[in-house]
């Protein structure tokens, strides 16, 4: 239990600092950023209570907004993502349900499962985030393109992080 809390706590701090200090300084094609910090919400364990996930999403978004001067944008996107996470997990659950002590990652759930899970949630998160940013429908298609491209970069960064930090299954 303590290991679970401290592990997630450090991941929270580390991902925020990594996002604001390093990733936000990367400019791909002028205005594309990978938003790796959503990995925190993706990797919360299955058995964590839903309301804690929502509150953590709120806190995560607020922390990001504080650093990036975008009050409300990331918070809206993260809370929405935390809400959809529950629904997507329910739809994608294996027939016998999720086993205790497992987390959504490469090792526990397999690459294909994780890919679908991560891409759906990242896409939803970016959808809300970028429409909250542009705040109008007049440039609908440029925003869609931005959402798609940013999602691809976020997913790539998520996969690299998973490969680096999640140790493979012991046989």
């Amino acid at each position, binding site marked *: 239990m303590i290991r679970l809390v401290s592990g997630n706590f450090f991941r929270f701090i580390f991902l925020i600092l990594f996002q604001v*200090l390093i990733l936000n300084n990367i*400019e791909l094609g002028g205005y594309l950023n990978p938003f790796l910090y959503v990995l925190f919400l993706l990797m919360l364990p299955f058995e964590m209570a839903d*309301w804690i996930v929502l509150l953590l999403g709120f806190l995560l978004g607020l922390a990001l907004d504080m*650093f990036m001067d975008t009050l409300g944008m990331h918070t809206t996107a993260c*809370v929405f993502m935390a809400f959809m996470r529950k629904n997507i997990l329910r739809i994608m659950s294996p027939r016998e349900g999720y086993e205790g002590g497992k987390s959504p990652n490469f090792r526990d759930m397999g690459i294909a499962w994780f890919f679908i899970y991560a891409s759906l949630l990242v896409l939803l998160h970016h959808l809300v985030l970028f429409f909250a940013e542009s705040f109008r429908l007049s440039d609908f298609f440029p925003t869609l393109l931005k959402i798609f491209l940013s999602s691809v970069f976020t997913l790539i960064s998520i996969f690299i992080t998973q490969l680096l930090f999640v140790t493979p299954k012991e046989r």
Partner: protein
Amino acid sequence: MRNLVLFFTKNYFTFLFLFLESVAFFLLIQNNNYQRASFINSSNAISGTVYETYSNITDYFNLTYSNEQLAKENAELRNLLKNSYTNYLVTPQMIKDSALKQQYSYIVAKVVNNSINRKNNYLTLNRGSEQGIKKDMAVICGQGVVGIVKEVTANFCSVMSVLHSKITVPSFIKKYGETGLLNWGDDNDYRFGTIKSIPSHLKLIKGDTILTSSYSSIFPAGIMVGTIEQVEQITGNTFNNLKIRLSTDFGKLSYVYIVNNLLKEEQENLEKATQND
């Protein structure tokens, strides 16, 4: 009553979601209307300190570039000195006149955080109210204009950069004196800005200089803004739009100057008095 309680406990997740999402949305709207709420932004104690520590480290990587910039600027200042010396010889009566009054004072500040890839970009500087910084002061650097101070805490301030959808910089074309308002434009490229509605009879070419005009109570007149990159002609219209290459390299800002207009209050009070008529 029991059913109502049951209904809420059963659907607590949805209600919590709706509650948190409305809080977030409220913050978003609030932020869009008033630029930013006063507490949760990058100039508060936590994020300000984190950004400053980070910038203290990364400054070493920019040292060569900063030195080069400073050397260039020193050279420019030296030129100015020489100029004023010759002026003194030519028109001594100007100097005897004791009515010269200082209008602007400059405070050097370090950029501890900067963004260029969003729709509305801000900088954080390591100067605040304890160093005499106030809202709506101009920020410039050796190369040109940077932005306007928006929020001030004790030791930090956050600055609305020229790369912000809501900023306008009153400026003029050096060759003709024609004035216009510079804003960032729509293509979100940190190297370019736009000036709209310039009469099409002016013969403008690529490379013409744009400076800040004297119509602003924030920016001093004659600060470099940029050069014309492209004249965008609109068919059937007597006005052209100008695409401006900004002289400030926003990707590499490290030291900037905050400009205190000592006569700003006087000017604004006067303008307010005539507005009431």
